[in-house]
């Protein structure tokens, strides 16, 4: 504990102001970064959540320290942790392609709420340090994250073909290369004329990236295959 922050450890007008302003600042800094990335929960959302959370622990301490009431100083704040989980879950959406979005926003909102609790409780050192670490995670580590995402060894192929039997050929070709097929989805698209097209989406697990082009090329060479694209 740093002695220089001792003046915020009791509940009085000065410390209440410091704690609440600190909560606004911590929430604002985390929210600013989200806002900058145009995520749904931005600046104001984070500030409100952080400030609200700070007021719960603050109120508990006021009741306990100033009024001398019989209460557990952690009870009000504890419910924030569960409650913001709910709000966070609302920011998570499932897109039409069955991808989950908004999870990092939800997790960030949840963490901001907990930092708010820490501010409200008067643990200034911890609140500042945690805010800095969250910003480090958001600003610096995102670069590492994108690098990994590109190296993902999953590969999705979109294939169009005109004859139903071509799929058996494709499946055989993939098996010959000992590749693992994660998923296979086939859809028939028929026009008003007699032209029937088939679309297949194949999910593959590829161990080496250089194989990609070779697979795409050999599938293209199969009879009746019209399009092969990597998604």
């Amino acid at each position: 504990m740093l002695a220089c922050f001792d003046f915020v450890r009791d509940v009085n007008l000065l410390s209440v102001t410091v704690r609440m302003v600190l909560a606004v600042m911590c929430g604002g800094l985390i929210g600013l970064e989200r806002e900058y990335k145009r995520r749904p929960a931005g600046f104001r959302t984070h500030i409100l959540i952080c400030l609200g959370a700070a007021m719960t622990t603050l109120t508990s301490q006021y009741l306990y320290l100033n009024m001398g009431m019989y209460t557990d100083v952690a009870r009000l704040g504890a419910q924030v942790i569960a409650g913001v989980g709910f709000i966070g879950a609302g920011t998570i959406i499932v897109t039409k392609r069955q991808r989950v979005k908004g999870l990092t926003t939800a997790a960030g909102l949840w963490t901001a709420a907990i930092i708010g609790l820490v501010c409200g409780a008067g643990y200034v050192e911890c609140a500042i340090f945690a805010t800095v670490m969250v910003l480090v995670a958001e600003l610096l580590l995102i670069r590492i994250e994108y690098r990994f995402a590109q190296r993902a060894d999953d590969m999705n192929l979109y294939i169009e073909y005109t004859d139903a039997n071509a799929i058996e050929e494709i499946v055989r070709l993939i098996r010959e290369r000992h590749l693992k097929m994660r998923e296979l989805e086939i859809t028939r698209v028929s026009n008003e004329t007699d032209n029937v097209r088939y679309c297949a989406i194949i999910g593959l697990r590829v161990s080496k990236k250089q194989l990609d082009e070779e697979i795409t090329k050999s599938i293209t060479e199969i009879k009746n295959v019209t399009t092969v694209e990597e998604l």
Partner: protein
Amino acid sequence: MLDCLTSLRELNLLSMMLRVVLAMIVGGIIGFEREKKGRPAGFRTYMLVAVGATLTVILSQYLDLMLNNRWAMTAEQVGIKTDLSRFGAQVINGVGFLGAGTIIVTGRQEVKGLTTAAGLWASACMGIAIGAGFYECMIIGTLLIVFSMKLLPLIENVILRHARNMSIYVSMDSMENLGGVVGYMKASEIQLYDVEIDKANEHLTHINALFSIHLPKRLQHTEVLAKIATMDGIIAIEEV
């Protein structure tokens, strides 16, 4: 318990910082595994959840410290101190909600995102242990979580590939095409456990069927899919 860590078990400025950083590292390690698989919850999500969980327990300890020193007089008058695990207990709840958001039921009766939710929840629980300064639990827990996430899928895949049971989701033009599919299954000695048929939409003519089948030994999953796909009147097929 390791004696060399004793000085870090008390809450002070150094141990607070150490725990937050450790939570980030551990969350990062677990998230890294998921990220590589292109799963929705990556690196930063795990990190944020782990840090948040750690902060709750640190906060509890801080309150306890205050109640025993600076606020000791009041605590004695009021006659109650805080429950140290109250904040942490809500993490278990709150992250459960967060995880629930990642679980989706696709239009094809298949549940996705369950491992993401469970992993997020496990790393939050890990964060609680880190916040409490339970470093041994952190080391063993991280090893075991990474082990389960990295190595167990390999075993799971082998089991799945050789699994004789499979579920296929088939869209077809009309009821008549169902006969063809069932006929093929009979001919290749595939046991049919269950068929769920639903008319997708009254305006549409096509029907959807979910087959639960048991394959004979020589047949591969993809072979069956490819064969059914070539039949007349099949619009879409997918293993679920």
